[in-house]
């Protein structure tokens, strides 16, 4: 919508009056619901006919390491897998629960675009929703407790992303701790501490996106003998819990809470539980991406992390502003930054802010998985004109 409104003319499209363009959230949500329903139907489509899988709906609770109650029904489990995922962290801001707030789930089900929105949290969920609603026309403020958005990512890139969001009209407040919430007429007010000073931010809605926690409540994990630590369920490298017949996977184990990590864990658990295969997880190379525009994607160590780990590093950077393809599609914002061990040349990390960064990062992922140097990236032939040429460029600069 924002592309049609803001950039159609630049691309030679005529006859569009930007003042007459409007966005119907209800239709967009209905479209999203249909896509989700198709996915859900597809899942039931293979679960239901599978005569080895009995699908039970309900809350599961261990009453012993082998006994599970599912909404009153009792079943026996020779072995079990805990794959309960995560949930939004409990709200710690006095008053917020009382005045009401949205979670990321709620924010995908609104029927009307709010005039203004405060997003509490400067991580993945916070900034994706902030940009999305800003583009829907909402006046958005991000309150990030950390002095950086995406605090675990390469600061050079996340600072740039903060500038991009600011240039789009989002009020990005860094080092901003929400301390309390009150209602003022139709508005919600978040009292926020910035540099020791109290500030007030007012909006129609508040999105609470300050982290997710493993979903471990109500599962009877104590009766099962499954220990939980500060991160989540405690597991070994075969994903076995402290109970010998119970494994756990994905978000409920804490750490890198990404769908792709859970999807990776799933088959490993199945092989270990059913075939006693002794497969171990390899979390050396877990990529991540923020689906903003430009997107931010990363894998491995940042430069600061590599230095702190004792490496002598080489750094290679490249700018999308120098890419012909980026110019052609009108998305020149962003850069790549790769980090390698100066001694061996082994790639230690890759960070990309730019168009399709979420796709481009996979070249670095496969190279790093093979404990590779940047050589395969800069010596192999890349198609022209593609954005992938920029990966080659940044890798070449590592020499």
């Amino acid at each position, binding site marked *: 919508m924002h592309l049609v409104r803001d950039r159609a003319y630049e691309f030679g499209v005529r006859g569009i009056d930007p003042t007459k363009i409007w966005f119907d959230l209800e239709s967009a949500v209905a479209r999203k619901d249909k896509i989700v329903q198709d996915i859900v139907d597809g899942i039931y489509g293979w679960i239901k006919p599978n005569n080895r899988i009995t*699908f039970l*709906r309900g809350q599961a609770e261990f009453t012993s390491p082998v006994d599970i109650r599912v909404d009153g029904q009792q079943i*026996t*489990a020779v072995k*079990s897998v805990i794959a*309960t995922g995560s949930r939004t962290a409990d709200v710690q801001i006095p008053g917020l629960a009382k005045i009401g707030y949205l979670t990321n789930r709620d924010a995908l089900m609104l029927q009307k675009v709010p005039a203004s929105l405060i997003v509490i949290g400067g991580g993945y969920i916070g900034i994706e929703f902030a940009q999305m609603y800003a583009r829907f026309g909402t006046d958005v403020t991000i309150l990030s407790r950390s002095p950086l958005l995406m605090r675990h990512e390469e600061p050079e890139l996340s600072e740039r992303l903060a500038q991009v969001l600011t240039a789009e009209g989002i009020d990005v407040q860094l080092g901003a701790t929400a301390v309390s919430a009150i209602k003022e007429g139709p508005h919600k007010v978040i009292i926020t501490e910035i540099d020791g000073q109290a500030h007030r931010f007012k909006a129609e809605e508040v999105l609470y996106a300050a982290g997710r926690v493993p979903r471990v409540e109500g599962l009877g994990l104590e009766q099962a003998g499954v220990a939980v630590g500060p991160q989540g369920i405690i597991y070994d490298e075969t994903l076995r819990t402290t109970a010998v017949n119970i494994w756990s996977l*994905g978000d409920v184990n804490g750490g890198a809470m990404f769908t792709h990590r859970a999807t990776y864990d*799933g088959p490993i658990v*199945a092989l270990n539980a059913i075939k006693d295969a002794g497969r171990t997880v390899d979390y050396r190379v877990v990529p991540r991406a923020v689906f903003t525009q430009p997107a931010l994607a990363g894998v491995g160590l940042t430069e600061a992390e590599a230095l702190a780990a004792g490496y002598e590093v080489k750094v290679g950077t490249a700018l999308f502003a120098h890419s012909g393809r980026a110019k052609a599609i009108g998305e020149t914002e962003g850069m790549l930054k790769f980090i390698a061990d100066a001694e061996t040349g082994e790639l230690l990390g890759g960070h990309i802010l730019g168009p399709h960064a979420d796709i481009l990062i996979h070249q670095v992922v496969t190279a790093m998985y093979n404990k590779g140097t940047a050589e395969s990236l800069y010596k192999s032939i890349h198609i022209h004109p593609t954005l992938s040429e920029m990966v080659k460029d940044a890798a070449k600069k590592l020499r």
Partner: protein
Amino acid sequence: MKQFDLVVIGAGQGGLPAAALAARLGANIALIEMGEVGGT
């Protein structure tokens, strides 16, 4: 009381591939979900 070789609690994007492969490996599985399949 029903007995299963493997009980998978949670039919999200981790539980589903675990159940699918375990089924292919011949196990008799209960897959339990309190909300909607597919995860968040």
